[in-house]
């Protein structure tokens, strides 16, 4: 193979090779979702399952609506909503679909989550959780103002 190409050895034993790239854009197969993680709203991906954060330890202390809207376009099909409450009062959980051309539309009747309860909701609770949605808004509302605790909500599903 002598003469097929020229090795140019450096003094330290390494080998240099010049590479010329002309008139070309380098395209790398990088999925930026895994590089643009927001530490405040963690997007966790394990295997085929991805998780987006809505309410992140929100301390509800009045009777106002506590709304968080999250992008669920990274989830394909069926979505699973988990609400974890350490509040000392019950809250009503309502889901709204959001997308281009509509502000938000209710996905159905609200669910009451008891004080300190954990709610695991599927399409059996809100059939639209099967739909390929752009965004979901989660609304928490108390009927009696809580005085301790907080609430967290995440949405999980198979990544698209």
């Amino acid at each position, binding site marked *: 193979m002598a003469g097929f190409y020229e090795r140019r050895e450096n003094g330290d034993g390494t080998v240099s090779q010049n590479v010329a790239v002309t008139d070309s854009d380098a395209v790398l197969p990088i999925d930026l979702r895994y590089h643009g993680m927001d530490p405040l*709203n963690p997007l966790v991906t394990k295997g085929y399952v991805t998780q987006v954060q809505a309410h992140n330890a929100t301390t509800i202390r009045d009777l106002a609506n506590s709304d968080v809207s999250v992008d669920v376009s990274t989830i394909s099909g069926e979505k699973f909503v988990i609400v974890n409450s350490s509040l000392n009062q019950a809250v009503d959980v309502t889901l709204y679909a959001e997308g281009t051309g509509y502000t938000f539309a209710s996905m159905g009747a609200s669910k009451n989550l008891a004080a300190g309860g954990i709610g695991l909701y599927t399409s059996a609770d809100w059939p639209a959780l099967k739909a390929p949605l752009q965004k979901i808004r989660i609304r928490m509302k108390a009927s009696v103002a809580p005085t301790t605790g907080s609430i967290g909500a995440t949405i999980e599903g198979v990544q698209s």
Partner: protein
Amino acid sequence: MVEMPVETKDAIIWAEQQTYTDRGGDVQEITFDPSDAQPLVDKVCVYFDDHTIKYPPFDYPTIRPIIDEILAEQQPEEPIEEQIPEGPAE
């Protein structure tokens, strides 16, 4: 923007030194891990209540800048590089 009480930093430092009992009944240490923020926020509220400090509704992202400040203060100082005297010219 939510205006937090001036005692918030003290509350966070205290909260991070506490433990909580998880839903399985196990005692867990409270950390600054954003994926497990609820125990920390709950303890911050306990500090406020115990000290009769009024606070507005808030969430983990609200106090995250203060947590970052605490973490920055806890970082060990950069070691001073030792000056190596130049050897005799060959």
